[in-house]
Every structure is written in C-alpha cells, then in structure tokens.
C-alpha cells in the first residue's frame, strides 16, 4: 500500500475540500497573532523615527541654547510649554524630541551590529558543536560555560573603561560578550537536524562538510536563528542603555537613550518627564523586538504551537 491511497482512505472527504493552502495558513497565523502585529507596528514606527530623523525632527540634536533649557513637554500646564518643542528641552536647551529621534538611530545601530557580531560567533560555535559533537562539542561547551561565568555588565564596563569608550568599542565589546545564547540554541537545533535522512544522503553523496552545513543544516535551523537574533538585539540595546547610563557607553553629546536618562537623573525631583520619555521609548523598542521574536517563534516553530 503506498502513501497516497492510505491518505485517501483515512482523511475525511469534507476536510479535503476546505483544506487551506500552507501559505494561507501561515498568513492566518501571522495576522491572528496580536503580539506579533503590535511588535512589528511599534518597531516599524521606531525604525521610521530613526531613518527619518533628519527630516522630521523639529530641531538639531546638538544645538544648545541655555536660554531655553528645561522647557516641559506640551501636555504640561506650563507657561513655557509650546509646540515649538513638543517634548520640551533638556538641561542644555536641546530639543528633546529631536534627541529622542536621533537616539533611536544609536539604539538600533548598536543593537543590530552587536547582534550580528555575536550571531556570527555564537552560530559558528553552536553549529560546529552540534554537527561534529565529541571533542568539538566539549570544547564549545567549555567556552560557553566560561563566558557565562563572567558577569557581562561588569566585564563590559571594565573593558570599555580600559580601552576608552566610543560607538565602535561599545558595539564590539557587546558583540564579543553576548553570543552565548546563539551558541546554546544553535547547538541543540543542529543536533536535531544532524541525524536526519537528508543529511545522511548528502554525506553519502560525498558533499563537503562546508556544503552540508551551509545548504543542508543552515536552512533548517534558520528560523531558530532569527528568533534568537531578535532577542539578542533587544538584549544588546538594553546593555548599551545600561552602559551609557553608567557613563561608559555612548559619550556625550551623542543622544543615546540611556545617556539621556543618565543626564536627567539629577533632575528627577523637578523634571521627571526627562526620564520618563526616553525610558518609555527604550521600553517600547525592547518590548516590540521581543514581541516580534516571540511571535515569529510561535508562527514558524510547529513544536511550540498550542
């Protein structure tokens, strides 16, 4: 008995008629996932804020005018509040909305670049450990354990303070520190795929190891990779904000959201909105990236659907 006749015997006829195509089922899953939709929308808005910053900003992010310092946002019932500075100005009289928009550029840039670096390191280690197993696996496990035992924030702060802080340094330090989750997840994903028939077939055909990994293994684990990549990008953004908050990340006068919160912490008593605004922006960005990652995991990974 071949497979086709077996399906015909067991499947009810009416189900066959209304069976949706895989594409429409995927679309239904995507649009039925509220978290995913919210995440994509919010992330899209922040992304637009970042790339359109030079066009839509009300001012210049570095233009200081002490005469107009600490103007509150428009919704405050205050004589100085005006639509000229919708989100007010900071302690040096710089337009807060402009700095918020330019800050989005920095968060997204650092998050994305650090995620790329850590993704390359972690995926390489994880796939090698999962594919080769044995000694390679033991070695990678050891490297991951060692990395995990070192406190990220502390090491990042110490290293940045020793070699001097700049955007590039922050990106590299974070990228070189947060690859552990990539390695762990890619390792177990590769282990699941490694022993499947099509990999054995490719091996039997005499394909090179590089080719097997690139064209047999990778396409089958790439959905896990994308999910981890989004979560790690969010992680990197939070770490950058924490470093900048402690004064060792992005340096003034650059408008990083973490740095904006740090610059405003002395004004918590009289001008708390200076902290609330970049804080909400940071929260919204990280939340939207996480929602996107979680949503993609639900939509693409069959084993996690309930």
């Amino acid at each position, binding site marked *: 008995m071949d497979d086709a006749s077996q399906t015909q015997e067991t499947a009810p006829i009416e189900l066959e008629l209304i069976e949706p195509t895989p594409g429409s089922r995927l679309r239904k899953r995507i649009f039925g996932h509220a978290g995913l939709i919210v995440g994509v929308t919010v992330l899209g808005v922040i992304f637009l804020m970042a790339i359109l910053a030079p066009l839509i900003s009300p001012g210049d992010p570095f233009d200081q005018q002490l005469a107009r310092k600490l103007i509150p946002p428009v919704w405050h019932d205050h004589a100085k509040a005006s639509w000229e500075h919708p989100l007010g100005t900071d302690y040096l009289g710089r337009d807060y909305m402009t700095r918020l928009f330019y800050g989005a550029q920095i968060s997204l840039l650092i998050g994305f670049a650090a995620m790329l670096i850590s993704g390359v390191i972690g995926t390489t280690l994880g796939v090698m450990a999962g594919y080769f197993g044995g000694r390679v696996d033991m070695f990678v496990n*050891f490297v991951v354990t*060692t990395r995990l035992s070192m*406190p*990220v924030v*502390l090491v990042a702060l110490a290293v940045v303070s*020793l070699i001097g802080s700049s955007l590039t340094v922050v990106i590299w330090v974070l990228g070189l520190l947060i690859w552990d989750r990539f390695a762990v997840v890619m390792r177990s994903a590769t282990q699941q795929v490694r022993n499947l028939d099509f990999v054995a077939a490719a091996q039997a055909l005499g394909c090179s190891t590089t080719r097997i990994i690139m064209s047999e293994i990778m396409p089958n684990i790439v959905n896990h990779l994308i999910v981890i990549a989004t979560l790690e990008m969010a992680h990197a953004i939070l770490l950058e904000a924490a470093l900048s908050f402690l004064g060792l990340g992005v340096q003034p006068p650059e408008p990083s959201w973490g740095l904006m919160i740090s610059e405003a912490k002395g004004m918590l008593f009289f001008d708390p909105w200076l902290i609330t605004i970049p804080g909400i922006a*940071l929260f919204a960005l990280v939340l939207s990236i996480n*929602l996107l990652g979680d949503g993609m995991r639900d939509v693409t990974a069959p084993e996690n659907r*309930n």
Partner: protein
Amino acid sequence: MVNFALKRFGVAVLVALTVSILSFSMIYLSGDPAVALAGEGSTSEDVETIRIYYGFDRPIYVQYFDWLWNALNGHLGTSNYLRSDVSEVIFERLPTTMLLGASALTFALVLSIPLGVLAAIRPNSLIDRVALSIAVVGQAMPSFWLALTMILWFGINWRLLPITGTDSWLNFIMPSVALGYYVTPAVMRLTRAGMLEVLSSDYIRTARAKGLRPMTVLFKHALRNAIIPVVSLTAVQFGFMLGGSIVIETIFNINGLGFLAWESIQRADLPVMQAIVLVLSIFYILLTFFSDLVNAFLDPRIRVA
C-alpha cells in the same frame, strides 16, 4: 554520583583557571600598565620605577602565576587608590551585595513561581494572560529606568520609602524589586512550561484517578518534579543578578560590591576591578556546580548522561 561530581568539579576548576587568566589579562587591555599608572606628564624614569616596583618588568606568565598564587592564598593585591588589601575591601562589601541579591531573588521567586503554577493550571485563562504580560513587560523594562521610576513615585511623590543607603530593611525594598523583576520572566516561563508538561503526564492522571485531593496532586506530585529545572535556572539567575547589581547599587547608593566595582572603574583601580570580576565569576562557578549536584541528586537521569 561520585563520578559525576568529580567530573563536574574538574570542569569547574578548568573554567575558574580560564576566568583567572582572562581577568588577569585585563591589565594589558589599556596597553602598558606602568604608563597608565604613572599618569600623564610622567618621565620615562618614573615609568621604569613603577614598572619595577609593581613587577611589570617580569615575563607575563611569571606575573600571572605570582598573581594566581597570591589569589589562592587569599591575597588579591593592593588597591591603587585605597592603598589597602583588596580582599579586605571586597569581603567588607560582599555581605551587602549578597543580602541585596538574596532579597531580590526572594521577591522574584515569590512573584514568579505561584504565577507560573497558576498559569499552568488554567492555560489561556485570564491569570495566564496576566502572568504572560508580567513576563513580557519584565523582559523589556530597563532595570535602571524601573529603579528611577520607583524612586520618583515611592520615594519622592508619595514619600513611602527611603531612596538611598542601607539603614533599614525598608531601603532594600525598591532595589530588590528593581533587581529581581528582571529575573521573574525566565523563572515564571520555566515554571509554567514544567508544570504544563508534568500535569499532562500519566502519573498525575493516575494520582487524580486514585481520588487524591487536587492540592496534594498539585503540590506533592506535580510541583516537586516541575521545580527541578527551576533550581538550576535560579542559581544561574542569582549569579547574573550579582553581576547586574552594579547598576542598581549605583542608583540607590548601596555600599556593596557593585558600587565598589563602579567606584574602582571610575578611579581606574585595576587590582580591585580584576578581583571583583574574579570573585563574582568564581562565585557563579561554585553556584552552578552545586546546583548541578542538587539537580543530579533530584533527577537520577542527569547523573548517567
């Protein structure tokens, strides 16, 4: 079990040695440590004097083994700024950080385990959604912003809690929440997933079919098994929290290890920075080692693998 413990211990020692090499090599990150110590405007004679005084003229491996030997004997060097023994400074500050870590962890567990259990009993119910929202929000909330927002409302606007120092247990409430909240999502998700898996297993059905009380089934039969992976996650998260306490301690002026780390970074006080990285790493290694042992004890399958 003994075999497993010995193997795990061997790995732990190797990891600790690697970490010690990494934290030792931090001195050379900024280039020549003697030049850095001498400061700007110093003559080359000054630099040479410092090089010989601190022993930077010796081969690097000699310096490393010397440092390691002293560290093993409990002498972690002398602070460049405080001019006192680093071990003393660290062990003076360590209890505060441990107290903060413990209370943050207590907060995290008290919030996340009951919520995780409730969410697993009624999947997709209101309580499950609330628990999920708390987890999603917790993962996205920058801890320093949460801390500042709490200071604003509970400290400044409502004047309910003290905002700096460590005078009473009230001082620890806000820092513990800020530090512990970040840990709750992971613990809650793992508790929920574990409980869901266990509750659908055969032995729970058997226990229910025997007519045991629902509470007995839930706590005695299900939670006990579901909690095993949570034990090791908690150990890992506790280690992360000690590392992350640097941000929270700085905000709340808590005189612990994290604050010391931040002060030392400001003062470029390398021996203290190195020692803190080393101490926290070793503590994490010990923590995961013991949690692995506890796990292997609770779940015999781990011992064999």
